[in-house]
């Protein structure tokens, strides 16, 4: 499964780079056409000022507020939660509630983004029906990520972005574990059905133990590939592919954490996940970087 995942990751990467190259070529052709037409029409006095390359200048273009849409869709519609039913305790139940919001600030002409994410996660798993290794695991906590993105298509896009970036993530959480099992030698038989009148009643005399640990912490680093697309006015839609590598979990005593808020299951030290998000941008007014006359002429020629 993990090999498939890695292959897919490279596939995405190849498509990503391929798209980038095609877009760059298209843009070069576009700029050549506009360059020719610009030279023909603008007055000679302005021809010397033909450096339209965005100069680096520290300006803050806007703040984008977003929220993740993948987790709510996945947890509510794809694999919906199934809350515990005490009347049928041996069946499988699962609750997953994950929410994530993000804030990013774009600066230096859409080149860089400072990113901050905050999320909440609640995961509950009920597998009491496993006779010898039945359990209930509950994990609740929050997390944040902080980092930066670089838009490697900043020359081509005014609002959109194709980014590569890094994050540092940290989670704080509590977890609770209830374990059940049958062990004849210690006087705990397996559940059995007993007929009482016309009905069968399940008698469960397995042992039950519990562990509760609080204020556990974990941290991880991420390498991200992302895309932000301006779909309507200041509304953006996008995704992030994250390659995450975690460090040790602090605070574990008798129970190893099975889930980390923001990271997912701890079966592997490295994970690959995807987030889709919707965001709204509050754009700041910034001074135009090109001289107003040049800007005007370019706009006129482009319209023609």
């Amino acid at each position, binding site marked *: 499964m993990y090999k498939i995942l890695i292959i897919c990751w490279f596939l995405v990467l190849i498509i990503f780079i391929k798209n980038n190259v095609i877009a760059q070529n298209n843009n070069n052709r576009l700029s050549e056409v506009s360059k020719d037409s610009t030279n023909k029409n603008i007055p000679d006095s302005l021809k010397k000022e033909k450096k339209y390359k965005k100069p680096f200048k520290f300006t803050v273009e806007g703040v984008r507020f977003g929220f993740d849409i993948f987790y709510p869709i996945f947890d509510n519609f794809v694999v919906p939660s199934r809350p515990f039913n005490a009347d049928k305790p041996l069946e499988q139940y699962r609750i997953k509630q994950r929410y994530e919001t993000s804030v990013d600030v774009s600066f230096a002409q859409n080149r860089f983004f400072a990113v901050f994410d905050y999320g909440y996660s609640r995961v509950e798993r009920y597998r009491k029906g496993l006779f010898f290794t039945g*359990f209930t695991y509950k994990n609740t906590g929050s997390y944040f990520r902080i980092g930066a993105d670089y838009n490697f298509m900043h020359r081509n896009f005014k609002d*959109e972005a194709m980014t590569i970036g890094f994050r540092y993530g940290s989670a704080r959480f509590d977890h609770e574990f209830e374990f059940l099992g049958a062990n*004849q030698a210690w006087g705990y038989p397996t559940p059995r059905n007993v007929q009482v009148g016309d009905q069968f009643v399940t008698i469960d005399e397995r042992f039950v133990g519990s562990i509760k640990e609080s204020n556990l912490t974990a941290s991880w680093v991420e390498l991200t590939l992302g895309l932000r697309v301006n779909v309507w006015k200041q509304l953006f839609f996008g*995704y992030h592919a994250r390659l995450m590598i975690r460090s040790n979990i602090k605070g574990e005593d008798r129970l190893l954490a099975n889930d980390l808020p923001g990271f997912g299951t701890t079966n592997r030290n490295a994970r690959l996940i995807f987030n889709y998000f919707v965001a709204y941008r509050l754009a700041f007014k910034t001074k135009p970087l090109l001289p107003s006359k040049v800007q005007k002429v370019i706009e006129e020629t482009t319209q023609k």
Partner: protein
Amino acid sequence: MVGSYIKQYFFLHCCLLLSISFLVSCEDCTFTSKNSTFIKVRFYRQKGKNDGRDRITRFIIDSVRTERGTLYRRPVSNLTGIDTLSLPINPTDNNSSYYVFFRRNNFTDNIQFRDTLQVSYNRIFSVIAPNCGYDQKVDELAISPNKTTIQSAFVFKNSLNINDTLNIRIFF
């Protein structure tokens, strides 16, 4: 032009990544743990204590009891004795287990001896996969001297593994 291009390809990316996400979300049950919750015990003669070679391969033991049940009872027809005893740890106690051995010197002997053994350990739980259940890693196995009446017993290997053949040596 580039803007419309990126919008067009954005949805292609979304479809691809979404399909991968669903693929990843499958929960497999691959229980590959080697951890064990059974203590393997073998019996030795006291005189061979130093080298541990004088093992009793047919040790006569009537029964082994725990606080709530019996984990071994010799069948009436069994006159060969036992070689290795597997003692399951107490599932409700994270730190210790207590066992009582009822034995006799030979099958025809009327005198039955009673020995006690208390072991302590460290037990750490983990969830292997949602469909597999939980796993327990037991290590730091030790014999509690003041709760044990057996003359001498030694820990040979202090972490429990399914491939273990010996964890505790008991000398009589």
